[in-house]
């Protein structure tokens, strides 16, 4: 017989209680989603594409980019679909004239001031909304500035920054809890900054690169990718991405190694991985160079009788 106390103990992971389903309509299509879902979730369930910049499934919504706005019947203003939770009977329009106009203006303002050349999917998005950033004229203010290359692992090209806050979120409370960066300044002069604007090596940065992993525009980029892009040899169509496991500790992070011409050019981790949620540490994201860097210490040239070069620090 089991004692009463022992019977009361919940041993297994608490089952998630089935949520109340909420019915709403999006672009005339009826859809049921669990209570607490966002309009974006409902759109995704229906296969309706909604553009996003500052939203990522692994981060808390911050509602800053405004490209995911949709029209909710009866609401005075457009709502960000990434954070607005669904309500029963809600009627949502994702491509009304008002929505299209707003998205177009947001994209035009971004594209006129920020270098979006390495933002995946951006050219298509601009075309889709018929955005004409050049209409603000050649004197439109921009955030053009020199790229910051102050360490061997990653570069910061804030001429490409759309201030989506993703890096700040990933560095802070959502993932790494290092708080090395934040948004400083106001209005057009708002920008990502380290504490007291110190160089990265003097900041609290621990070089996990989780900011690079979430950056939607290539403003943050591993140094190797940046070098290959500078040399004009970065070619994603020639790259393979294979999942393996990081060797450096017992956590067992899934490492997706991106390989081009037999060289590892980038390490990432899948967002849907239970262990990492897309995150890595400095060794996982950057510490793989020993398998191919200066093969002096590897392969047949590693003659134990040969004089050895000191370790490269």
């Amino acid at each position, binding site marked *: 017989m089991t004692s009463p106390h*022992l019977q009361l103990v919940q041993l297994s992971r608490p089952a998630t209680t089935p949520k109340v389903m909420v019915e709403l309509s999006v672009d005339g299509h009826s859809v049921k989603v669990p209570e607490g879902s966002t309009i974006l979730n409902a759109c995704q369930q229906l296969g309706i594409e909604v553009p996003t910049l500052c939203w990522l499934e692994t981060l808390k919504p911050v509602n800053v980019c405004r490209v995911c706005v949709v029209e909710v019947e009866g609401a005075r203003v457009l709502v960000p679909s990434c954070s607005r939770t669904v309500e029963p009977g809600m009627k949502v329009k994702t491509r009304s004239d008002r929505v299209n106009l707003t998205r177009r203006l947001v994209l035009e303002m971004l594209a006129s001031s920020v270098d979006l050349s390495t933002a995946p999917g951006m050219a298509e998005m601009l075309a889709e909304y018929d955005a004409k950033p050049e209409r603000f004229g050649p004197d439109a203010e921009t955030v053009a500035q020199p790229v910051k290359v102050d360490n061997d692992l990653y570069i910061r090209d804030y001429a490409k920054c759309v201030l989506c806050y993703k890096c700040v979120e990933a560095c802070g409370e959502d993932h790494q809890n290092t708080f090395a960066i934040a948004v400083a300044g106001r209005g057009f002069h708002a920008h990502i900054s380290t504490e007291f604007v110190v160089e990265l090596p003097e900041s609290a940065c621990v070089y996990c690169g989780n900011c690079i992993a979430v950056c939607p525009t290539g403003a943050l980029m591993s140094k190797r990718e940046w070098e290959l892009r500078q040399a004009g040899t970065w070619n994603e169509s020639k790259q393979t991405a294979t999942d393996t496991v*990081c060797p450096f500790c017992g956590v067992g992070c899934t490492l997706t*190694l991106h390989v081009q011409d037999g060289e*590892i050019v980038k390490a990432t981790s899948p967002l849907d991985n239970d262990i990492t949620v897309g995150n890595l540490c400095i060794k996982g994201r950057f510490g793989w160079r020993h398998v191919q860097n200066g093969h002096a*210490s590897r*392969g047949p040239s590693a003659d134990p009788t040969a004089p*050895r070069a000191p*370790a490269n*620090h």
Partner: protein
Amino acid sequence: MHNGARLYVMDPRRTESAQWGDVWMGLHVGSDIALSNTMAREIIHAGVYNKEFVANACSGFEEYKASVESYTLEVGEQLTGVPADVIRECAHTFAKAKKAMICWTLGITEHHDAADNVLALINLGILTGHVGKWGSGLNPLRGQNNVQGGGDMGAIPNKFPGFQDILDPTIRERFEKHWGVKLQPNLGWNLTEMIRAMDRKELTALYVIGENPAQSDADANHVRHCLEGLDHLVVQEICMTKTAEMAHVLLPASASWCESDGTVTNSERRVQRCRKVIDPPEGAKDELWIINEIAKRLGKDLNATDPETVWNEFRTVAPHFAGGMSYARLAEHQGLQWPCPDEHSPGATFLHDRLWKTGVERGMAAPFTVVKHEGPVEKPDVDYPFTLTTGRHLDAYNTGVQTAAYGSPLFRGETLDISPEDAAKIGVIDEDTVRVTSRRGSLLVPVRVDRSLRPGLVFMTLHYPDEAMTNVLTIDASDPKSGTAEFKACAVNVVLATSAVRVYAKT
């Protein structure tokens, strides 16, 4: 923690984790058992232990209770250096929490009483019933991607694959039948025992796969002497190392985690697939190929042609353990946690839930183990007044072979970290070079004054042995139960060798 969990960090150093914690308990190096026993006594005396769980699932409680009786809060404070009220608060919070877990790593296990340290924590876990249920438990955090997997596969001196006992004749017979060879009915040697056997010339040939004992083991001068005395040393490595330089035969190998296929097991028993991503450098061979070729030269064709075949054989000989972990399922679920006996099993997110059952279902009771505080083998004295403890830097890995050259901006190389109080006492400042001497060896190293250290404690890593071979200082006093050496504590003396200021003044 953002959801309200309380974090208590027990560490002699005020590490970054300690700064994150709600409470830092900066105990003396090697006083872990004293802390556990003091917490246990407080929990028992306050009546906040899980009486039903202890009665139902544990054995040896009365003896355990008597053994911790002398560890009052006052004695605990004296032995650990942690204030009595802090120990008390931690004990009560831990005992009363609905769910609580204890995680540890080498700070517990790199001691001469490593297993006893772990047993002391297990005692706390079962005393409070924080085991065998989701969100609770006892978690040793592994330092490499396959520490657990090595044990799973039987690469330990006392177990066959799937942790099956070598000394059990039934099990041995089964493996003999499966492999078609006679198996020794006795335990093998662990690393420490092997080094001692080399010293006695009982072990004369050594085959090292992916380890750098010449730099990674305690009392390095002695280890080097033992390795030099071998008749034959074979080293299989992905990079050149100091051990590889000593080899009679060097077998260049592919890096298992990205140049060949296979599996690894992480800290939470999750078996995951490693995949070949790039080709190894010319001449480096897949480790499985090397082992097959060696077996062939020894007159046995293993036919272990690919990793999946080997894995499936493991599943056959340890079906209770990994029977349900096909490569296909491992890929589909991004890894599975053992035990996973059949193809329908989701794997086990936690172990020991049987302890919450009764009768036959409960199985063997969880035993309390009486353990006593001893402290480090080598305590500071007049000649060697400091305790040296060793540890890691975030951006570096073990003896630095893999991490020396990736350009980490956090790289700072080897230093002797010392408290501001001790630095003032012996008259050193940052970047001075000091001579650090133990009873076994001596080295020169720059000083780094570190506010996270308390007086009497100094710290070094083992990442930069080409700059400063920390392990010439460490003591090979090792745990008879686990074979782990006491890397975490030895007595040293520190004296100024070259003043940084004077050097700068001259130039």
